């Protein structure tokens, strides 16, 4: 099979970790659990420098940040890495991953850009930087250690009521492998990074016609209100294509995809009353870290699943995870937070 030609080399340890801008606010548990998983569970050395900035992704795709500025910002992160003595970089967001890989490719084909960036960085911050040896996305790491997670699994992806593996739709962020296939595990057409996890945790991957279709985010479509209809229509097209397969869960590895496939289900339900799960419910959308945490038996509310638009209670019931609805919106020390009004699936 062709995708075997695209096996990429993922480093084992010592990563310089760069966060995503929007995942902390929309899916707070994801990055938190990733660091916990790598450091405490797997005992890996993951260093995070608090002064690393955005990778300018949203600015880049909204066409407001010039390319040379982006290169300098990325070079500054490489400089922080160099100072911290790390050779491998783990990138939390797929859009960033797309930018980092694009810049590495640009430097490879146009060495003069690399020299200019060195000069700019030095002038701006006085720092020096090296090109990292190994660039990985955090989902690559979870993919690499998926078997350790499977070993520690308390709730495999099996539907307790029917005993069959959960039907999971995986959606890989386009900037992960479609731009530079060799940077993704398994190439552009059939990337293995998420389906690998699902299969090793007992789930069943669904192949549906719009599998490779865009999740609907598309920066410029979303940012400009006049175009927002396109963004929504893409997501609706994707969900109506997967609806026939009755998926229990959508797994993603990119902040944009997770957010929009989650939020647009609410919007389309409000606008046209259409839902895509069975008996009127919507389909929960989880990031790979959240799913890994669920499989390992952490409390759903600690992972932050209640922050999603589409509540994942039906999924939890299927996996047989006990959860206490009352302390869903209660802080760690018991104070009651305000409860959102029309939650979906709850």
């Amino acid at each position, binding site marked *: 099979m*062709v995708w075997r030609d695209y096996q990429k080399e993922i480093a084992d340890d010592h990563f310089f970790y760069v966060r995503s801008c929007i995942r902390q606010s929309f899916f707070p548990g994801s990055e938190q659990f990733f660091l916990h998983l790598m450091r405490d569970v797997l005992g890996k050395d993951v260093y995070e420098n608090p002064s690393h900035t955005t990778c300018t992704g949203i600015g880049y795709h909204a066409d407001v940040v010039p390319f040379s500025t982006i290169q300098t910002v990325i070079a500054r992160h490489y400089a922080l890495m160099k100072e911290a003595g790390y050779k491998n970089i783990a990138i939390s967001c797929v859009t960033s991953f797309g930018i980092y890989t694009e810049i590495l490719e640009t430097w490879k084909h146009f060495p003069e850009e690399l020299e200019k960036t060195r000069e700019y960085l030095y002038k701006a911050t006085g720092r020096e930087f090296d090109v990292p040896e190994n660039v990985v996305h955090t989902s690559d790491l979870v993919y690499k250690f998926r078997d350790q997670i499977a070993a520690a699994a308390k709730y495999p992806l099996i539907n307790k009521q029917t005993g069959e593996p959960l039907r999971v739709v995986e959606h890989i962020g386009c900037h992960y492998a479609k731009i530079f296939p060799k940077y993704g595990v398994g*190439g552009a057409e*059939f990337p293995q990074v998420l389906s690998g996890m699902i299969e090793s945790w007992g789930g069943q991957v669904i*192949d*549906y*016609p*719009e*599998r490779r279709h865009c999740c609907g985010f598309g920066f410029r479509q979303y940012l400009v209100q006049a175009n927002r209809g396109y963004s929504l229509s893409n997501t609706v097209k994707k969900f109506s294509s997967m609806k026939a397969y009755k998926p229990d869960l959508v797994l993603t590895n990119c902040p944009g995809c997770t957010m929009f496939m989650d939020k647009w289900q609410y919007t389309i339900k409000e606008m046209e009353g259409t839902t895509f799960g069975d008996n009127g419910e919507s389909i929960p959308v989880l990031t790979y870290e959240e799913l890994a945490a669920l499989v390992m038996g952490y409390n759903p509310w600690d992972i932050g699943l209640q922050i999603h638009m589409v509540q994942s209670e039906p999924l939890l019931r299927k996996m047989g995870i006990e959860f206490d609805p009352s302390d869903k919106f209660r802080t760690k020390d018991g104070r009651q937070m305000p409860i959102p009004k029309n939650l979906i699936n709850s």
Partner: protein
Amino acid sequence: MGRHVVVIGGGTAGMEAAGRLAREGVSVTLVEKGNELGGHLRDWYHLFPNRRSSDEVLEYLRGLVSHQNILLMKGRKVTGFSRKGDEFAVSVENGETINADAVLLATGFDLFRSERKEEYGYGIYDNVISSADLEAMFRKNELKLVNGNKPERIGFLHCVGSRDEKAGNIYCSKLCCVTAVKQAIEVRKVLPSCKVFCFYMDMRMGGALYEELYKEAQEKYSVSFIRGKVSEVAVNIQNRLVAKVEDTLVGRPLKMELDILVLMAGMEMSEDGIRLADEAKLKRGENRFFQPADHHFGTNMGNIKGVFYAGTCTAPLNITETISHARGAVMEIVNYLNQEK
């Protein structure tokens, strides 16, 4: 006169050339790596443009090669050949070497490996087959889906691996269009209830009687033609293929369910041809076929004297052209031998 030629490749070109050379009084050794002569011809069902059976041409060729001047060497691969003075030493797999006054390369072509166009799902989804697979189905008279049902709708996808930079071949393989139309007609004949669609970029029907075949396909067999190159194939819940294409003549995307998708694989230089060429330092063009000494009057010769080419190892050719190209090679070889000796 003791003149001896080694013909490498026992396909249409090799057999024709060997037969003609033998009749010119030249002793020939025909080396074929497979255990059967005929090359790809053995895989075809009927041939365009008049849809006669391929076995008839095979019989004709077999008749040619049964001649006392020809020594057949089947199941033997040629590992390489080198020039000694004005003679050649051709080394064969089992260590044997044959001396020859001239070498004729008739190494033919390989069909483009359709799985390299992964987005079409060859080898990933059921019922995505190549044109060669369809010919095999016709020969076995088993035109049916993997699950045994009869197809109701078959799509032909032109230019798979040809005119495609991603597949590494920007040249046109010339024959897939007419093959697709021929196969479309054969499908309609075998299964009248099955609808047939051809997805094309341009209909290149340049040979004799090709355009008539095209019109017959439309008029008598109601084959539909949609201008647009399919970009992606998926499978829906009923396990039917879903082809996504832009109907360019209306400027709108189109989605269509198909039971079988036939990929019209293009023609590439055969791997053995490349191996031999590199080993013997024979120049090859950008499209990897042998570089002819001259595109007009020297397509049978290359950059090394005494080494001659015949058939589809120089360019995509249909069977008629292959045979006449082989005859050209024979004439060149006989001239060469007369001058040298």
